[in-house]
């Protein structure tokens, strides 16, 4: 008897790679992408061991399209990503679809990898793209079983290792499991330092026309903690001038840009490590500089407001997350990618911040807004990519707030009717092709 078990199926399909979790669960599949341990800067090659492996936490993303955007999102630094949609790589890799200069995730885990992708914009296939960046992948995995495992046990650490020989031996697998137990936690790593790259933050906007360049006299400083290109594009497309600054920048550097507003970008890792950036946010608040926090930037604002952060069980990663804007009652479908949250109830009233957005599924905090100062933040990704472009209005509200100082709360509070009107009169996402 061969069996329906994971191991058995591994044998049946001639698996040559395996993902071993800290809790002993093992998934098998086929290697793709890069497996040369020298290629990846963070690869830990156990001297003498013939099995290359990579390590990290494993999270799942439920987006049905946009694998390239996910792979190149700097917020995935330190993580292996399982894509729950089973057919991946269908339309290859396309020049302008990357969200940063290179893929950042530690490994990609998929069910089926397209043998013959096809698209008029395709420049190469996904496996080749990852290979070039030194990133390994595994396909043929029962990704649904894996997702259910993560849902039940929370985000887990794992190592992805290459098998050789015909059968994985218990010893081999056991060694991988013990390696998984030694993988450093996200919170113990300074991941932002890896990905912050103000010089490479700007993205070309050829695909996007400047729909309403009415913010052409506005200069925005962006604190780059691992920014996605579409945040930059969303500003540029509206005519705003951008200055990208390192996450280590101090108040003087920021003020020297003479920007009228500051954005704290998304980025990887634990916000609790970001005290320096939170301090910068406090200083800017004190000076009443208009602020927008996105994702990690939102958590930073939460810390600056005196709140605390903590880990979600298995994070929010996908393009279908419903968020209710409590200032208008409207529900928005959002793109999300975060492990950490600002704790509900941790924001002192005295800070002036209130919870402006709530996740409809688990009531977690999705946004903060200041009642008197021009500052607000969103936990989700208003720039989408991948995911809905419905939330580009966040950039509009921010730029409006910069132009005509009102409080963060008031900036968001524009009535749903006028918002709908705006959505009709202007392209809703600013991403109309040329």
């Amino acid at each position, binding site marked *: 008897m061969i069996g329906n078990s994971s191991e058995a199926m591994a044998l049946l399909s001639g698996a040559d790679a395996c993902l071993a979790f800290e809790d002993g669960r093992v998934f098998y599949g086929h290697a793709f992408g890069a497996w040369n341990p020298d290629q990846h800067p963070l690869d830990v090659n156990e001297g003498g061991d013939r099995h290359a492996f990579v390590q990290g936490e494993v999270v799942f993303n*439920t987006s049905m399209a946009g694998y390239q955007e996910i792979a190149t999102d700097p917020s995935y630094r330190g993580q292996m990503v399982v894509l729950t*949609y089973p057919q991946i790589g269908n339309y290859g890799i396309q020049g302008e679809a990357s969200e940063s200069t290179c893929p950042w995730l530690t490994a990609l885990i998929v069910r089926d990898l397209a043998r*013959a992708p096809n698209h008029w914009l395709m420049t190469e296939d996904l496996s080749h793209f990852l290979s070039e960046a030194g990133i390994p992948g595994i396909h043929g995995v029962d990704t*649904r079983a894996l997702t259910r495992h993560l849902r039940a046990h929370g985000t887990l650490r794992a190592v992805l290792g290459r098998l050789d020989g015909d059968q994985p031996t218990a010893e081999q697998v056991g060694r991988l499991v013990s390696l998984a137990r030694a993988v450093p936690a996200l919170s113990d790593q300074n991941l932002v330092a890896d990905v912050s790259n103000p010089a490479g933050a700007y993205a070309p906007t050829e695909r996007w026309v400047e729909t309403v360049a009415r913010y052409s006299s506005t200069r925005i400083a962006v604190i780059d903690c691992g920014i996605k290109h579409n945040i930059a594009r969303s500003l540029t497309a509206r005519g705003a001038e951008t200055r990208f600054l390192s996450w280590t920048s101090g108040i003087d550097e920021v003020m020297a840009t003479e920007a009228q507003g500051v954005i704290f970008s998304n980025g990887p890792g634990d916000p609790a490590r970001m005290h320096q950036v939170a301090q910068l946010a406090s200083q800017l608040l004190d000076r009443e500089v208009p602020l927008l926090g996105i994702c990690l930037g939102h958590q930073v604002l939460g810390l600056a407001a005196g709140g605390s952060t903590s880990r979600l069980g298995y994070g929010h990663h996908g393009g279908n997350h419903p968020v209710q804007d409590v200032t208008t009652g409207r529900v928005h479908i959002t793109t999300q990618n975060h492990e950490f949250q600002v704790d509900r109830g941790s924001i002192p009233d005295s800070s002036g911040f209130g919870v402006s957005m709530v996740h409809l*599924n688990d009531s977690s905090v999705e946004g903060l807004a200041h009642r008197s100062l021009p500052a607000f933040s969103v936990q989700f990704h208003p720039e989408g990519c*991948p995911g809905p472009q419905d939330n580009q209005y966040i950039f509009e509200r921010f730029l409006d707030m910069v132009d005509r100082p009102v409080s963060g709360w008031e900036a968001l509070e524009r009535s749903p009717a006028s918002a709908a009107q705006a959505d009709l009169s202007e392209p*809703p996402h600013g991403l109309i092709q040329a």
Partner: protein
Amino acid sequence: MTPRPNKVLVIGSGPIVIGQAAEFDYAGTQACKALREEGIYTILVNSNPATIMTDADVADAVYIEPLVVDVIERIIARERPDGLLPTLGGQTGLNLAVELAEAGILDRYGTRLLGTPLSTLRQAEDRELFKNLLLSIGEPVPESAVAHTVEQAVIVARQIGYPVVIRPSFTLGGTGGGFGRTETELRATAGTGITLSPISQVLVERSLVGWKEVEYEVVRDGADNCVTVCNMENFDPMGVHTGDSIVVAPSQTLSDYEYQMLRSAAIKIIRALGVEGGCNIQFALDPASHQYFVIEVNPRVSRSSALASKATGYPIARVAAKIAVGLTLYEIPNAVTERTTAAFEPALDYVVVKIPRWPFDKFASGERTINTQMKSTGEVMAIDRSFEAALQKAVRSLEIGGRSLQWEDRSWAQAAAGSTALITGLIEEPNDLRLWAIAAASRRGMGTARIAKMSGIDEFFLSKIEDIVTMERELLSKPLTPALLYGAKRMGFSDEQIGTLSDKLPEQVRAQRADWNIRPTYKMVDTCAAEFAAVTPYFYSSYDTENEAEPLVGGGALVVGSGPIRIGQGIEFDYCSVHSALALREAQVNSIMVNSNPETVSTDFDLSSRLYFEPLDEESIRNILENESKTGSMDEAPPVILQFGGQTAINLAEPLYHSGARILGSGLRAIDLAEDRQLFEALLTKLGLSQPPGAAVRTVEEALPTADRIGYPVLVRPSYVLGGRAMEIVHSPADLVRYVTAATQLSLIHPVLIDKYLAGKEIEVDAVCDGERVLIPGVMAHVERAGVHSGDSMAVYPAMGLEPRDIQAVIDYTEKIGLGLGLQGIFNVQYVLFEGQLYVIEVNPRASRTVPFISKVTGVPLVTVATRVMLGESLADQGYPGGLWPTQNLVAVKAPVFSMAKLPRVDSYLGPEMKSTGEVMGIDRTYRPAMMKALIAASLMLPPQGALLFSVADADKTEAIPIIRAFAGLGYRLYATEGTAALIEALGVPVVMSTKKLDEGHPNVVDVINEGLVQGVVNTMVGPSARRDQFRDGFEIRRAATEKRIPCFTSLDTARVVAECLASGDGSYEVLPVTSYWSFDPRSVMSTPERS
């Protein structure tokens, strides 16, 4: 915010026709349930009795009445609803709502349109308004303009740019349309189009053929929150109606940028339209740029929304109904997760493939080309974790004679060595065989680039078909190893396919799988890609590692559904499957439903304890049974119910029995007895019941003496029939030779049955037998004489004009048959009463298509009763007497409805081969109004005055005389063909025009119809064996009537009842909830269960 309504009227979609099928029963039923949950008094009207929505307990008041303005107005006057929900009854419901509003009826009674504003309904219908609206919000629509001359067309084309498509105005199914890729081609096409258009007009439009076709299902609430439930991509590019396209969900070849670009446009459009509820938006996307156009918007639930609901688990109709009465998306709970709300977008972690089911297996002469006119009657859906597997499962689900993707037409292989012309021809022009032709081309080494060039299909999809073909080759050439077998199963190959390719029997492949423990796992459809723990009992199979469907605690029973809607197996069987599942639940038995049809109520995951969305073949059912068995063996598997899923389910009895499955109710022996000609004949003789003389033959040599012995005309048909497939009345030895030769070519296993054709009165009963008693809820008589397929006949309850002794004979026969065959459960018997003698024509050991009709008119819940009998509860236990149930003092008429207008070159002539796609019911206190309502609902009623064209075969002339006199007496002006005109004039009745034959100049018969001179046609013929020119003229007459959309009566019996209805009374009828017609409460007749 407008006040919440208290009383809401829901309009159904009427009979099943091509383009409007069971999806609206699913939508309407869900909506009624959703409204009643909100405490709203719900009123439903539909003319289709075969639906779940017209069950008395679906709404607070259920009307089965014709869907015409007058009737709806009377319902509104009687019920005074303050809201009308028009978006759930397809185009029919929408059109009626617009008519009601425009006639001022809604205003008069203070009834508000819910969900979608009237202006939007108009905008979506009026091409020009729609175009302007979209342009005003910056959404692109394909450029077009009308032209009345070729020169105008050329000017328009220059403005738009080549290529263009030419659509003649007001021709059926776009007849005469075509392309203008160059000016020369345009001139030719436009010329033809202008000639063919009755108003000499063509639309010249930018051609988007070959572009990707993508649709989005969007939902918006009254607070302007929007979600897209699903996007779907057509495998077939633009040029094929989406209903006739193979569809994949979610889109496969769109990047996130493209996905979001179209999603944003869809949301913008639903906002501009102000739809509160569901909306379907179709786009054409250039495969080589980001340019797109909006092609179509349906501001209502649709076939696509039903597909999207089943594909995602997001119940669009339910949510739309809640929104229509004022709820916001976040106030509506998500029934799947039970902890999130409807304000989210489903994430799929599987691939869904839909394939249309076309009727060309029945209409071999029909035009198989697929274009912008939908021709399929139904569809199948399959789910798996890869496109390849979902596609192959969907193909198996089609149930076209066990055809897998490996099927090839004989002629393809027979073509001259190396010639692929036949195949490439099928690939270039869309048709029902294109998918198989693509696989065949791939098999012959044709690359995806070339196939893509010919078909416009994305190479991504073609590469997947190529992968399947590569696997075929491996299976053919390599020994079966565990890895190879596992790989093949993961790509959706059936055991049978693997067996064929690796030279094994399917059973050997199955045994090998068992040996290597290669079994399917079952995954849940949960709307959220496993992000949340879900409670949906909705599963599909996949060869993967983790199985999520543990056997149900406490076992249950498995109901095998009826698969795709096709002619001969329609929505009636879904009704039966649904009721069986409900009866199981009521009896505290877990119901496990298996079906492959996304349009239906049976595949609503809410309905059963567990739903498996799977092909209805032996392998899939056995896999499910084993999965539901604690030990994995058949001994512990739940029993199977096969009586309600039509011929699909009953055909599984034999293989399932031999695999060790337990079949509830009638055993295999009883089923065989009913279906095996010789065994059945012997039994009838033993029981002393008559049957038309006949025999089963296997060769022409056997057939000729048999027919000589019993005398012509004879009825010939293959054994094991479905919907009277290929049944014919044969009048001569020559025709018999032709028929038998053709039939034996098709199947050597099953013989051909030859019966004496008795032109008597057809009588039909449905009954339940528990082994001791037989319960007959009612006796139905057909209006059309024997020879017209029972599915195409009008049936009247109670049977009129029968002597009490005839009724008694029906009861006696039925009881003897039920008990004699040893049936347990439901069955159907068809009789012919000929010269005072009752003959048994056919016994079906399963539910028939009249079950919903008879259940609704008599009040006997036949399926429930039969299901309980199968569970071991006798009729006596249930309180039912044996014999004939007391007759309700009402009359109900079931009338067939056809979709001929959608099927070019198909003959509407009624015969032993079934052609109708749906049915309606007319019910009233007496015969005439009931018949009239049936005729109105079936669009068969003639206006009170007008003109008729008669063309009657010589053999029918005597019989036609009283009918001709009747119409003349009503003041009808008569047109007739030569011979018939002579007959009419001989009667002293004037004939307006004696028309010429088709090849004798003008005005001919067809001109008379085309020019609108007549409002109906009576045309009879002696069958396909008629003289060639007679047959051709008759065919053209019938097609012309079909295309002119006027009634064409090919049976004098139908024409007679129409004349009777016109002649009688003032044309008045009642409009009442269906149960108000009952003369007694069914419960009053039931005894206290005899069980103590």
